[in-house]
């Protein structure tokens, strides 16, 4: 009884310290005490983000061998490499919470952890590469800039690095589209078609509407989420509309109009049934994305094992040499 009470008091003191730290906009670091719920929620958030970066290599990776010029190919290759890098920063941040990367990878390929549902849509033309940079990476930037101030130190620091690099991603996409728009009618039609297909899924990237997002309040109190889904979605629409105008494409929303009173662009409602279906696994590419990730992981096993065997052999050789001396 007594021991239990002492422990409770200790936890209360730690909890108070934790809350004070967050209230003062200071960061929680890995070795600090934190509530189980905070740790769990963060592991889920960071892992899901890491998985999204890794799976996100696939839709654009499909165009690496078919890029229309060496310049575009080099840019696309650099971009896809960045996504791999972002995944690694984030797995590294997740591991500071006491989970293991291999465990997270396993959960991804077993379908037990999710990734952003945007990557379950196919890339049908090279204009998709441009639109993904412009809209999908644009939405990601909207989401991620506030997360640079996440209360969890390693996640915030990873986000700072990622945001710097995302800016290149968005700009290369927009430039690609500008280039296509200055081309033939067929090329302009490609851009419009890609915009039509990616616009609504991009709006869904911010997650369900606020009144259907039960975890938002707690995550915002913990400051691991800094703005609500609807706030971010509105910010993204307000940013994107002038960009679409400058580009000369039409956004596929008949309700889209400037709301003078609100000072925002009014937009229509995304198809949330489609969103739920795709999140639940029934999108155009869900099965393919996971299958390819699983194949890459399993077919790469021999490389990991060979490297480990080589390292062990070298270490043994080194030890023997050291002993002989």
């Amino acid at each position, binding site marked *: 009884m007594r021991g239990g009470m002492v422990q409770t008091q200790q936890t209360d003191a730690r909890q108070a310290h934790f809350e004070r730290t967050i209230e003062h906009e200071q960061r929680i*670091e890995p*070795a*600090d*005490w934190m509530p189980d719920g905070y740790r769990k929620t963060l592991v889920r958030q960071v892992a899901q983000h890491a998985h999204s970066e890794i799976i996100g290599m696939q839709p654009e990776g499909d165009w690496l061998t078919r890029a229309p010029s060496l310049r575009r190919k080099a840019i696309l290759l*650099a971009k896809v*490499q*960045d996504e791999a*890098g972002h995944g*690694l*920063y984030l797995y*590294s*941040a997740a*591991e*500071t919470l006491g989970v*293991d*990367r*291999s*465990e997270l990878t396993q959960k991804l390929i077993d379908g037990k952890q999710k990734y952003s549902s945007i990557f379950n849509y196919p890339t049908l033309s090279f204009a998709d590469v441009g639109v993904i940079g412009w809209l999908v990476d644009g939405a990601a930037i909207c989401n991620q800039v506030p997360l640079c101030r996440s209360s969890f130190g*390693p996640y915030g*620091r*990873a986000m700072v690095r990622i945001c710097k*690099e995302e800016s290149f991603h968005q700009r290369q996409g927009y430039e690609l589209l500008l280039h296509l728009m200055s081309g033939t009618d067929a090329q302009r039609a490609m851009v419009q078609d890609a915009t039509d297909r990616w616009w609504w899924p991009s709006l869904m990237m911010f997650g369900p509407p606020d009144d259907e997002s039960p975890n938002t309040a707690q995550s915002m109190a913990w400051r691991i989420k800094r703005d609500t889904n609807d706030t971010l979605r509105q910010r993204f629409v307000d940013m994107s509309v002038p960009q679409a105008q400058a580009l000369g494409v039409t956004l596929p929303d008949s309700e889209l109009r400037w709301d003078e009173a609100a000072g925002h662009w009014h937009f229509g409602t995304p198809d949330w049934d489609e969103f739920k279906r795709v999140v639940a696994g029934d999108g155009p590419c869900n099965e393919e994305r996971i299958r390819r990730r699983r194949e890459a992981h399993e077919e790469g*096993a021999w490389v*990991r*094992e060979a*490297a*480990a065997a*080589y*390292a062990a052999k*070298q*270490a043994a050789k080194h030890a023997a040499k050291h002993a002989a001396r």
Partner: protein
Amino acid sequence: MEAEAGGWPMYEVFVRAKRGLNHVHVGSLHAADDEMALHHARDVYTRRNEGISIWVVRSDHITASDPNERASFFEPSADKAFRHPTFYEIPDDVGHM
């Protein structure tokens, strides 16, 4: 940790951004050995000229202070205000000191 990728240990990565600056911790990664850790560190953490020098060290070779003991561990420095220049009152007309 040993379960990872057929037993690849974790390394911490430190990067010197340019001459005149310290190496700073930037994150961690997994690698089979020291050399691979250096190559991975270059590829993951310095794709845009972020560094001119990298250190990698196995995470399990780092000894760290305990955050729960922070108060007592750093206590010897907390109560010595006289170590700071502002502790001393110097007349204004002496000028900058």
